[in-house]
């Protein structure tokens, strides 16, 4: 969080320090959570169960039909699992970045600014909720089941694509969380808008793109690039064509899109913080 014109070296140094600081704040919260093991176990189970509901709804749908938008249950489960794990990772690591509005309102944003640690690190690590592993575990189980049932030919390249998809997806969702937080520097009460993109986004990506209108698919490909979280790479792994007929190379573009998102998010976050520091409200 160097102010003024950033130098590349300084930015890198800040980033490393930011990640380290994030790490030790998180470690503190994990230790504190583990002091109440029974309560933690219960919350983990609750998180697992709540996030599983979406898949329960999908299973009920498939108790009535054989295919949805031309996709079978294991195929939908594959989309569901990848979306869920990517979103779960970002929710675990950056989910609390949405508390910007609340912190501005109660004045504790100022407290964060008086400490020698990047504000974003402090914000994202604060009240780190390990129970959010529940969603990741649940999504991984569904994903594992889908992979077993689908009988795809897992070459090393395809395995690499699967992992890069989930990690890039987590980065893209993470950017949405941070952008949502940054947006609240300007509109403090609007925290719920980002739910449309985070929770809404992960719900959308649990279903095949063929289910949705082309305009909507185009929107989440080019405007909010959620299609790169799983749709485009997953369709390739499933051997399906994407409904927009995009060039095949885009199926591998998720890491690049994720990097671009991170750059844009970094700039918007800085602008938000700068706006806060000049208005103080």
């Amino acid at each position, binding site marked *: *969080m*160097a*102010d*003024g014109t950033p130098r590349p070296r300084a930015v890198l140094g800040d980033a490393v320090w930011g990640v380290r*600081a994030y790490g*030790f*704040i998180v470690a*503190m919260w994990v*230790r*504190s959570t583990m002091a109440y093991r029974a309560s933690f176990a219960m919350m983990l189970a609750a998180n697992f169960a709540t996030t599983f509901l979406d898949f329960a709804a999908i299973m009920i749908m498939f108790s009535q039909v054989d295919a949805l938008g031309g996709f079978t249950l294991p195929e939908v489960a594959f989309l569901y699992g990848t979306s869920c794990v990517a979103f779960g990772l970002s929710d675990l690591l950056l989910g609390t970045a949405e508390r910007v509005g609340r912190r501005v309102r*109660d*004045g*504790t944003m*100022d*407290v964060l*600014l*008086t*400490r*020698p*640690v990047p504000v974003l690190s402090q914000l994202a690590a604060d*009240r780190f909720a390990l129970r959010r592993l529940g969603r990741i575990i649940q999504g991984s189980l569904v994903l594992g089941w889908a992979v077993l049932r689908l009988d795809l030919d897992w070459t090393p390249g395809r395995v690499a694509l699967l992992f890069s998809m989930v990690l890039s997806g987590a980065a893209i969702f993470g950017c949405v969380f941070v952008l949502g937080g940054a947006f609240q520097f300007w509109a403090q009460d609007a925290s719920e808008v980002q739910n449309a993109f985070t929770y809404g986004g992960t719900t959308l990506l649990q279903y095949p793109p063929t289910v949705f209108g082309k305009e909507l698919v185009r929107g989440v490909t080019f405007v909010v690039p959620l299609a790169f979280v799983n749709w485009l790479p997953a369709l390739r792994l499933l051997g399906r064509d994407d409904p927009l007929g995009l060039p095949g190379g885009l199926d591998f573009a998720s890491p690049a899109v994720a990097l671009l998102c991170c750059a844009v998010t970094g700039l918007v976050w800085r602008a938000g913080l*700068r706006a806060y*520091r*000049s*208005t*103080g*409200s």
Partner: protein
Amino acid sequence: MSDGDGEFIDVRELTKTFTVRRKTGLLRRTATQVHAVDGISFALRRGEMVGFIGPNGAGKSTTIKMLTGILTPTDGSLRVAGVDPWQERTRLVRRIGVVFGQRTTLWWDLPLRDSYGLVRRMYRIPRARFEENLARCVELLELGDLLDVPVRQLSLGQRMRGDITAALLHDPDVLYLDEPTIGLDVVSKARVRRFLVALNAELGTTVLLTTHDLSDIEHLCKRVVVIDHGRLVYDGLLSGLHEVGRGERTLVVDLERELPPIEGIPGARTVRTEGPRQWLAFPASASAAPLVSQLAADYPLVDLSLREPAIEDVIARMYAG
């Protein structure tokens, strides 16, 4: 690094202007400029302990926020320990400690000990140094039994002592205290004050203190800086403060429409404008009558009111108590 010679905190013509958008109709909003801090200058030497007072909304917190690098000034210059707080916030915060009386800087759900552990790592305090500082604070502020209690279970007085400790673990050169005794019982107040005196005497920590409780100032500070309506109205010895009571009065002028700041009225100057309303300050000793007649002749007046210096209340309370 030039914080050894000259002033340790150096504030010159510091200004902070906020744009406030107010609803004036169903859909219309008008933007008005509010001068929260309006060209104040003062300086602190290393090791001074100074009271920073003024009525509510005078601009105290805004000034503190600029001094700590939280807010960027609109205009003027500002150096703390040789650093520009706004430009080099992260470098500066290692050298300052901040205590906000009304909100804690500690982690609500963690025991004090864990909060301090986090502070140690955030400020990269060498362990020996940390242990030494913590031991001193724990002894002087009598925190021994409280270290393993989560912050949310502490009383206000205990929490305040915990907060002061957290602000001092990294050996700051400057300590900003914003209402440190607000809501505290008599015993806690006395304990906090004793501690601050000792801190200032033994370590030479520079302290800037805002408070509503003027007995804080009497116990702790020889010098006070007083602001009102964003302007400096007094800077000097506590004993000379009563003279401020004879400072300036303010004429609040409502014009027919928004106009540039009023000029050319002898003995008065415009200190604030907000839409068609303007504030004119003039010496309390002067009569308002000639001023008003001159104004009425030169400007389209709608309404007038006279305001005695708000700071008088503060001082009145001080000498009554």
